[in-house]
Every structure is written in structure tokens, then in C-alpha cells.
């Protein structure tokens, strides 16, 4: 069937999702060039929310000093910028499901490296409201969760949480409204409760901005009697604040 594949490659040549360059035989979805340009978050980063920190002197970022998150730990693969941003936009708004493979793969690498994640027993994706899910055809967090699940061999419960209210998109709201927006938007799926009672749960989402969504989900899960909740996201937004501080300090 090699011939058929070669012919398909001629008629419909595969292109890099981001830079639209022709993919080589060993590349999939993303070209090696774009892949290597993904900026991963390396220490130092905030030990609560995973945001990159300007220097080693502090352990916790400004937002985490002010606000305490209910989840015990969250890590992000990369800052919300460049290639990762394009991939997430493609996944969320352009219906390109395949990008979840790349993003999920990156997330699983982070999870495998971190000691903290060792005792996770279950994966739960942040849910979408049913109407939104029907529009989009899928829940991007669930796709990411599926990738993680197969990479890490941890079972996933896609419908552990239910979004009870169709809330407006978080991305368009200012920080102070976000919390109100998602307040009480989630509930436990009673039929699945037995599966996660007393377990350590890995909560999966695409972007971490203020943490409002993850906070709300964690609270709901803890109400549902889970022992502990850890989070993993593709990208963390709002780290530009630090970058600016950094440049100011340098001057």
C-alpha cells in the first residue's frame, strides 16, 4: 500500500499545520522546524500554578501569593505564545482535532518527568457545555485527556464533570469577571461518582489564564469526595507580566 500512500501524498500533500510547509516523510502534523520552536517552561516556575518566574529567588508568583488555588499542583507545557498558541487556536476554533496529538504528547512528557504526578489514578477533562460540544463536534480537553490516557496508561472519565451552565467564553472576559462567570457552572456526574471517590485526579485543560475554571472544577471534584486534584494544561497565559517586570528590572 506504499504506492497508494505515495499517490495520496502527491495529490493531497500533507502540510505543516502551522507554517504550511510540506511535511517530510517522518513528520506528522507539525514540521520539525516548528516543533523545535515550541518554548517549553523550564525552572524556575511557580510551584503552584506553573507560570515561569523571572528568577530563582522566589518560589511563588504574584498571583499565587494573593490567591490560593484549591488544587495542589498544576503544570503547563509552554507559555501561551507562538506555535503552541497557533496549535491551540487550530484545535479550539478551526476544528483541527489532530493537533491534540502533538499537544497531548507534550503534556504527557511533562507529566512523566514530574515526581508529583506519580500518584494520579484518573484523568478528568474540563467539560464543555453540551450545546458548545455539539457545535464544535468534540471537547478539546477530552481529546487531550485521551492522548494523555493512552500515553500514561491511566484511565480517563470524560463525563466525570458536567457543565450545567452555558457560560460565555472565558477568553473574552476581564479577570474579575471570570470567577463569577464560572461560579457553580459545574457539577458532579452522580452516575460516575463511584469511579473517582477517594482517588487522586489529574484535571486536564487547554489554557490556564487566571485559573478560575480549574479552581471551580477542583472545588466540584473535591465536593465529589476525591482525595486530591492535580492539574495539567497545554499553555499558561498571563506570564507576559513577568516578562515586562524582567525588562524593567534590567533597565
Amino acid at each position, binding site marked *: 500500500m506504499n504506492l497508494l500512500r505515495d499517490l495520496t501524498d*502527491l*495529490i*493531497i*500533500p*500533507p*502540510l505543516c499545520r502551522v507554517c*504550511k510547509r510540506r511535511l517530510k516523510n517522518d513528520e506528522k502534523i507539525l514540521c520539525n522546524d516548528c516543533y523545535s520552536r515550541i518554548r517549553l517552561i523550564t525552572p524556575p516556575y511557580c510551584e503552584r500554578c506553573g507560570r515561569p518566574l523571572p528568577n530563582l529567588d522566589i518560589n511563588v508568583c504574584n498571583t499565587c501569593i494573593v490567591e490560593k488555588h484549591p488544587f495542589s499542583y498544576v503544570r503547563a507545557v509552554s507559555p501561551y505564545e507562538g506555535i503552541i498558541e497557533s496549535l491551540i487556536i487550530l484545535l479550539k476554533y478551526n476544528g*483541527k*482535532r489532530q493537533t491534540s496529538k502533538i499537544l497531548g504528547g507534550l503534556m504527557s512528557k511533562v507529566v512523566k518527568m514530574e515526581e508529583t504526578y506519580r500518584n494520579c489514578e484518573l484523568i478528568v477533562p474540563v467539560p464543555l457545555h453540551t450545546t458548545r460540544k455539539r457545535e464544535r463536534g468534540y471537547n478539546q480537553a477530552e481529546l487531550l485527556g485521551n492522548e494523555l490516557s493512552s500515553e500514561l496508561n491511566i484511565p480517563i472519565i470524560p463525563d466525570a464533570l458536567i457543565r450545567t451552565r452555558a457560560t460565555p467564553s472565558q477568553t473574552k472576559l476581564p479577570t474579575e469577571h471570570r470567577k463569577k462567570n464560572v461560579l457553580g457552572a459545574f457539577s458532579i456526574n452522580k452516575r460516575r461518582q463511584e469511579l473517582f471517590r477517594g482517588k487522586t485526579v489529574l484535571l486536564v485543560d487547554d489554557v490556564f489564564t487566571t485559573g478560575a475554571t480549574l479552581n471551580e472544577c477542583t472545588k466540584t471534584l473535591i465536593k465529589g469526595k476525591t482525595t486530591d486534584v492535580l492539574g495539567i494544561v497545554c499553555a499558561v497565559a498571563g506570564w507576559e507580566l513577568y516578562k515586562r517586570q524582567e525588562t524593567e528590572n534590567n533597565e
Partner: protein
Amino acid sequence: MTRTPFLYLVISFSTGLVCGYFTNRLLFAISLLLLLLLIFIAVLLLSETRPDYKDIICIVLISCFGFFYYEGRTRIFPEEHIRYFTHIKGDLSILGDVISIPDKREDRTFFRFEVRSVMNSTDTIPMCGKVRVTLEDDVEYGNRLILYGTLNSPPSSSNPGGFDYGRWLNRQDIYVLMSPDSLVRLEGKYGKNLIIIAARIRTYIEKVIDNYVGGKQGAFLKGIIIGKRGGIPGDVQEVFRNTGVVHVLAVSGLHVGIIAFLLTLIIRLFRAPNIINIIITSTLLIIYALMIDLRPSVVRATIMCILLMISFLIRRDTDTLNTLSVAAFIILLWNPQSLFDVSFQLSFGATAGIIYLYPKVYEIIRVRGNKFIDNVVIKPFTISLSAQAGTTLLAAHYFYRLPIISLVANLLVIPLTGICIVTGLLLSFVNLLGIGILNKIFASSVYGFTTLTLNVVNMFGRVPNGHFWIGSPSPLFLILYFIILISGFNAIHNFIKWGFLGVSFRVLVYTIFISLAVVLTTGLYRVYNPEIRLTFLDVGKGNATLIEMGETVLIDGGSYHRGVPTAAELLRNKGIREISLIFLTSPLSYDIGGLSYILENFKVGCVALPFIPYGSYGYKKFLRNIKKKKIPFRFVREGDRIAAFSIMNPKGGVETNTKIKDASLVLNFNAKEINQDMEDIKTLFLGHVENNIHEMVEESDILKAPYFGGNRNPSFLEIVKPEVTVISVGSNRWGLPSEEMIEEYERYGRVIRTDRQGACVVRIGKGRMTIHTMFEEESPRERILRWTGVR
């Protein structure tokens, strides 16, 4: 690893096809092939992705394949091909199948007929090939018939720049015409099921439109929905051409897009999985394409649509330019001659323009602040602009005009046509339900929208200076234009995006230099090789001669063809907008012909005519037009001289008692009086004179014979001694020209009849004179001069 492997494939394949098209001399073809390949490879070497030797070998092999493929498909025929039977005079019986959905117009039906055997009184010979049949009877697709009648070769263009019906048919692999006297229908269906379904749907939609809409609107609707352009009146099509929206009449990507969209919407309601959705949509699109008789534009759109759906299914981002090239390659394999078809070129030009230029142009002129303006004004305008860039000059090559109004017209007409198509299709669906009131509602809305569309097009057609007659750009000019267009936009795009100019800029600069060199050399060539050109047009029963001698002179107005005088068509082909002098030899209708049209549509310097009182409608209209446009005119008589023309007849002033014909104009044109370097060639135009001709002639080289060749006393020939005699004539009930007269002319030299040899072009230059008739093959020199746009 290129993004667009098929683009390179199609370009090299087309290079081969072009070589095959332009020549049938092997040696010349090979040198042409090598030259084109060199240019192609040079461009490739300049580009960012440097090809290795394997790619170059591939390209060469594909080009050679294209060349031989073209030869094989168009010049080599099996011995039992029906085209070898056209020379047989007399009737034949041929058996075969109807292989196209018949195109029914008022009282006649046109269809393609696949021949299976030819029968004569004794036996049946197996045969192949296609015939275009015109019939007064009704037939259906898939019928098996025996036709009885004469076979004819399709006529090729008889005037320079005219529409070549013969070539047009040859491009569809048809070399034989037939209008059978009688037919026998045989039992059984011999068609393909898919086409039978398509034929049924087509007939159904046609019936619905005839029932509910009708008239000009109905014809327009049939044109845009089922591709039946024949019913649209010529003047309406002319307005569409003037406004540059003629492409909406050709069923195209717009239609296929709309239909695919409607289909997926309907199929989605059933919540079928994607793959089933795609299979159903593709099948229906293919049926639609079959319904439109597989026109290049619709096949292109269908293939692209199916490929895009597949790429969606296998979740791949892909390059649309490659998809377009795949479509082109499939069409060219199916019929290599499509490459030279207007609709193929325009369809691919427009699509390539949108795919390639749109993102680049949009980048430059986008409005960032205002989303509304960006979406409603900038985007549609940019799309329209990019499509125009790909097609306008190509279209000018065929239609001779530059419709600048089209930039605006398209913005309105395309969405309106879209609405017409959607409502028209919905009307056909709704009619199935059989609810009378619903039918009426839809029918009136369809009627309303089509009327609106036609009125909008008409309105744009009336805008002053909406289009300019620029003449037909030469192939070389078009090639240079496209290279400059592509490399120019690439260079600007690169500069804005990356801040450097890159290879495209180099290509642009080289091409501009080459273009300047071409302009300079052609200009110099024209200056050092002045030429006077006399074109004796084939206008059937009538006369028209165009003389280009720096200025333009027209002698008589000839006849109309599809609502436009043949002479006007030629003038527009050459991009001539100004005629300095018009001679009218007599007020008879053969001579006036299209002159009124020409007076209305061209800038005319002066009119010279004999003073003959005459009361026909055409003559009165002609005189009225002269007065209305305030054109200087002059009654001429023997002894008058205008420029290089000396008038030999009529004698004296008003001669009421002589016959009109004998009072008609006799002219003598001397090339040497225009330019001393010219060959001394005298041309005598004999008007309609019948009696006493010997009194008004002198020795001449070229004779334009009087009145369809004349039929009176040939004694004047002893004085004239013409080396060449041109007879402008069409089939007529008097059987003119008579055999005897032709024999008389032939005693002195060559005789050219416009009805047998087509138009005749006499070129007088320094120390030479050449004569070329339309049905002869052009000499390589003239061909090269034409391709490069020197003449």
C-alpha cells in the same frame, strides 16, 4: 519535497502540449520544446527550492510525454475513423448512439453521436469517431439511431480573428458535422445510468423553468443552472461581456460550491457519518457535472470540491493550488485540447488568481481597524480583483475588450447570480411537492431575482467608459504579463513579510528587461518594415475591404455575424478604434451592410460616396447617422483623388437615368503613393459596374471583381490584366460567379473566392507582396509575427 507536486507536473505536461499544438513538424517541435524547457528550468533554478537532476529529468520526460500524447490524441486516428468519410459526396447511413444530453432549441436538437458503423447498399463497415448532429426531431441520451444524410467538415474561421467553429469542435474531438435527412430509431438503451439520471434531472429542471419563468429570464436561468447558453440572446451575452461578468453564464465553481454547500446542509440533517456524507455529495456533484456536459469549469470545480472533502476526511491540510493542478491534469489527460479552450483557460485563470494572488493582495490592502469594512468591502473586492488579474487580459485575447467596470459589477452580480441559482434550484425541489401556492411564491421570487440581475447587468452595461476596446493581446504579451504579475506580487509579498526581495524580484527584473527588449525590437521592426495590408473579408453576399496603411480605410460595410458586423469584429481584434476614411461604393444593401453600426461605434474621420439618390431604409439610416455624428462626408466623382485613391467612376454629376450599379464607385489604390519604398502595386476596386467597364479601368495588379464576380462583357480584362482577382461572394440564387467569368479571370492570374478560400489578406511591403487566404496554412514567418504581436 514541494507543496505542489502537481503544479510542476501540469506545467511540464502543458509545455509538451503547447509544443504539440503549435507545430506538426517534428524538428521544429523538438527545438521549441527544448527552448520552453530551458526557460522553465531556468525559472526553477532561480527559485528557492533548487531542483536536483532527478527533478529535471522528470520534468523533461513529462514534457516529452505531453508532446507525444498531444500528437497521439489529435493527429493520429485509426483508419476506420469517420473523419475520413467527409470527402465522400452524397448520402451515407451511419449507425451509432447519442452520447451527449441533447441540447434542444426551439425547433432543432443538437447532440454528439458516437458512430459504430457505416452502412452502404451492400455491407456494414465498423467505424469509430464522433459526429455533431443537428436534427429537427427529438432524441434522448442513449438512443441508438441510424442516420441518413451527408457528412460535412466543420467550417473553420473564414475571417482573421473570427470565431473558429471548426477548431472549437475539433477541441471536443469532433471532426464531422451532419444534418440527417431521415433517421431510424432502434430499440433499447445504450447509455450509462448515471448520465441517464443526469439527463432526466436536466429535462425536469428545464421543464420547470419553462413552466414558471420563461422569456429572457428563463433563458438566463437555464444558462446559469443547467449550462444551456444557447438560448440566451446574443445582445444579452454581449452586455455580459462588456461588463466582464460573462463567466457567471458559464456554470462554474460558484455553482458547484453552492450546490455542494446545499447538499451537505441537507445531508447533515440525517446525521450521517462524514464518509457517507462525502460519498453522497460527490456522487451528486458528478451527476451535476454530467448534466452540464462535463464543461471544463464545472469539472474543475467538482474535482476540487471532492479532493477538498477527502482531505478533510483524512484530516490533512493541503495546498489548494495543488488541488487545482490535479484538476487541470485530469482534464488535460481526458482531453489534451482543452488547454486551448477559452472556458478552460478563463476558469483556471480565475481560480489560480484567487488562490495565488488573493492572500498576497489581501495582506497589502487589508483594513485592520474595522472588521465590518474588512469583511464586506475589502475581502470581496480583493477576491474579485485577484480573479480579474488572472482572467481579464486572457479574456481580452478572445473578446478584444477590457471591461474595467467588472471590478465593481462582479461584486454585485456574483451574489445576485448565487441567489438566482439557489432560488431556481429550490423552485425545482419545491415543484416536486406539488403544492400550488408554494410553487407560485417561489416562481415569482425566482422571476424577481433574475429580472433584477439582468437589470443590474444592463445598468452596468450603460455606464459610460465601462469597457475599452484594446484589441487582442498577443500570446507573447500574455506570457510576459503573467510572469510579471506572479513574480511582482511575490516580490512585494516577500518584501512586506520578510523584508527582502528574493528571487521573485530577480525574475521580475529580468522579465521587465525582456519585455522592454521585445517592445523595442517589435517597434523597430515595424518602422523598418512598413507594410500596407489589404484584407478582403469574407462577408457572404456583400463586400468589405479593410486597408491598413498607417491610417485605416474601410471600403463598404459587409454583413453582420451574431449581431456584430464582421468588419467591426476585425477592427476590434486589431484594437483599431479610429477609421480615417470610409468609402461606400453604392447605396445597395450589399455594400452598406454594417456601416451604420460602425458609424455609431467607431470614430470615423470622413465618408466618401457617389451621389446616388436611393430610398432604402438602410441607406437613409446610414445618411442619418452621418448627420447625427457630424461626420464630414463628400460626394466623389471621376478624377477626384483622396489620399492614395483615385476615383474612376461615376462620371459627371447626378445621373438619374443611368442604372444605380453603373453609377457605383470605382477606385484605384496605389501602394507606392503611400510610401515610396513600397512595391508598386495597384489595386482596382470595381464596385458594381456592369456596362462600359473598359472606360473606367487601367492596368492593375490586384482586381476586386465587380458584383459577385460579374457576369457581363469581360473585355475590360484586356486592359486591367490582373495578376490576382478577388471575388467577394456568398452562395446566391443566381449561381454567381459564372464559370465563364472565372475562366476569363484565370487567364490572367490567380482567382480568390471568399466563399471557397475565406478572407484574403494582401500584404505589400518593401519589394514584396504576399497573399494569404484564411484556409491556407499560415507561413511560419507570419505566425511568429502574430504570436509576438508585431502585426
